[in-house]
């Protein structure tokens, strides 16, 4: 009875998993199919070809876009981690005038939808003369209220005595943050990193506003322009460009996944 229920459970779960993964696998497979095979639901191309990728690569600067995206997303993620954890540390652990106001404002920022600030931000970028620069893509995202609050939440739980002890050992605040808090906050930092990276990697709207030069376009932006603008010409080529977009994210996730699994218990202080 018990085995039966187990079998049923696994069958159900497998079915659900397949439902989710099938479209993705189909997309991956279809990029390798010649045009006359695209209409089929098969997962294995009968005559595999890399033509779709070749065509895509030839028609638009996807290599450059990939590099742009990597540069922008990495810069933003690094900045959010470094600057965000510094802000979070100050909020969580230092006593200074205006701290409650700072916290309230940070929380308030979360309540403002991004679309609302889009126009003023755009105007600002225009006036700074940053249109068609990397600065326009990167600078507005260097700090992130969600990241700050998440890290702050983690940092307040680290025992005060660890900070005291580090100060007695001769550390300054930055050193405490990066040599004591960072190793203990790995799971939180990993989550922030993944969300920030993915958010930045997938961002389309903002780059469309501030970048018109094809050489500065990020991958999703170029993809949008390319696929929607009819540059792809065929479904296979469209999907190939989508693959190029998605693979780095999957790789990044696989690379960082173990931090999700590493339990918070590792950060505990007592045995």
């Amino acid at each position: 009875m018990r085995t039966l229920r187990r079998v049923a459970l696994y069958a159900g779960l497998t079915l659900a998993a397949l439902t989710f993964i099938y479209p993705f696998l189909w997309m991956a497979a279809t990029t390798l199919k010649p045009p006359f095979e695209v209409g089929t639901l098969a997962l294995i191309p009968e005559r595999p070809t890399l033509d779709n990728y070749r065509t895509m690569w030839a028609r638009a600067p996807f290599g450059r876009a990939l590099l742009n995206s990597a540069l922008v997303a990495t810069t933003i993620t690094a900045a959010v981690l470094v600057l965000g954890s510094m802000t979070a540390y100050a909020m969580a652990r230092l006593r200074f005038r205006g701290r409650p106001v700072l916290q309230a404002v940070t929380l308030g920022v979360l309540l403002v939808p991004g679309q609302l600030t889009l126009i003023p931000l755009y105007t600002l970028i225009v006036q700074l003369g940053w249109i068609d620069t990397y600065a326009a893509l990167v600078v507005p995202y260097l700090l992130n209220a969600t990241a700050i609050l998440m890290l702050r939440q983690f940092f307040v739980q680290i025992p005060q005595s660890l900070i005291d002890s580090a100060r007695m050992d001769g550390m300054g605040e930055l050193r405490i943050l990066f040599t004591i808090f960072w190793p203990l906050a790995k799971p939180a930092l990993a989550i922030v990193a993944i969300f920030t990276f993915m958010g930045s990697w997938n961002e389309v709207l903002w780059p469309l506003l501030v970048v018109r030069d094809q050489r500065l376009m990020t991958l999703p932006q170029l993809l949008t322009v390319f696929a929607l603008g009819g540059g792809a010409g065929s479904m296979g080529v469209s999907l190939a460009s989508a693959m190029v977009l998605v693979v780095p994210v999957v790789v990044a996730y696989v690379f960082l996944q173990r931090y999700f699994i590493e339990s918070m218990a590792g950060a505990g202080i007592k045995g």
Partner: protein
Amino acid sequence: MPPVSFQHVSKRFGGATVVDDFDLEIADGELLVLVGGSGSGKSTILRMLAGLESVTAGTIRIGERDVTALPPRQRDVAMVFQDYALYPHMTVRENLSLGLRLRRMPRQEIDRRVGWAAATLALEPLLGRKPKQLSGGQQQRVAMGRAMVREPAVFLFDEPLSNLDAALRAQMRIEIGSLQRRLKTTAVYVTHDQVEAMTLGDRIVVLANTRIQQVGRPIEIYRAPVNRFVAGFIGTPPMNFLEGRLHDDGGGPVFVADGARVKLLRARIAAGSSQPVTLGVRPEDLRLDIATPGAGEDSADALAGRVVLVERLGGTSHVHFDAGQHRLIASVTHDPVPNVGDAVTVQVPAERAHLFGADGRALA
């Protein structure tokens, strides 16, 4: 090594005074214990000495140096924390050596000190482990070792034994005491446990309500508490107190309370009579006898009581009894130990009686 001095140190958080005019010199190589209940300010004093808390008023000196405004790392002090505060992601060796590495000490010297501390504290087999993999007692030793390798001018202990179970606590108490005597490093030890205070301290500072109540060698504080708070705080079981009045009927001063008369030594009583006073007497100083009907009941300096509870600890028994409206405790080491419900007579030896005035101060 330099002594420590606090000169009229106060600490206020907002409007609340936490430490009020703390003024004290700590001698070279001394182990000074700060003892008091929660809110007495003992931990704040330690943290001010460590540099972890700012000083509102007054001066702290370590040796010749005024350290009042210096950050912790420039004070040449090392601290052992209640929860040990070991860095969870570092091995024992890394925990021990971190403070030295940050001070850019030569590698050889670091290795020598870590080796010495590990040997002294029996940590050698554990150097490669992480704190999580250690027992409470072992973590405690690592915390001690981390303070030792610094070879500081002053050791600071912030309730280091509170997280250990009773047996380990007794053992670590002995280890800390013997280690400190061996190293002869000046140490300040904060605890709420008066047994730790009595057994470890060269001197004890009893704190209550943000102020020093009494400073002295443990036995002085035990024998001659300056006020009722100290008398009640130091000693287990605590001192018995009886509320009453002083009378002098010509035959010498007598303490009179509800159902009790205790003759006192003339020399210890200031002139004046019929003032309200509190008589204090330690449980082991009471002489308790099982009452024999018809005898000694109106003996001049005996209390009559009835036993309500007996705690037998083996060698000693704590006999709780009611005398008039007072609930008292006597420590009895001899047989026969009375049973619950027995009538007892209790003698208060005049030379062991403590008297406290209405303001709580001891009457000399």
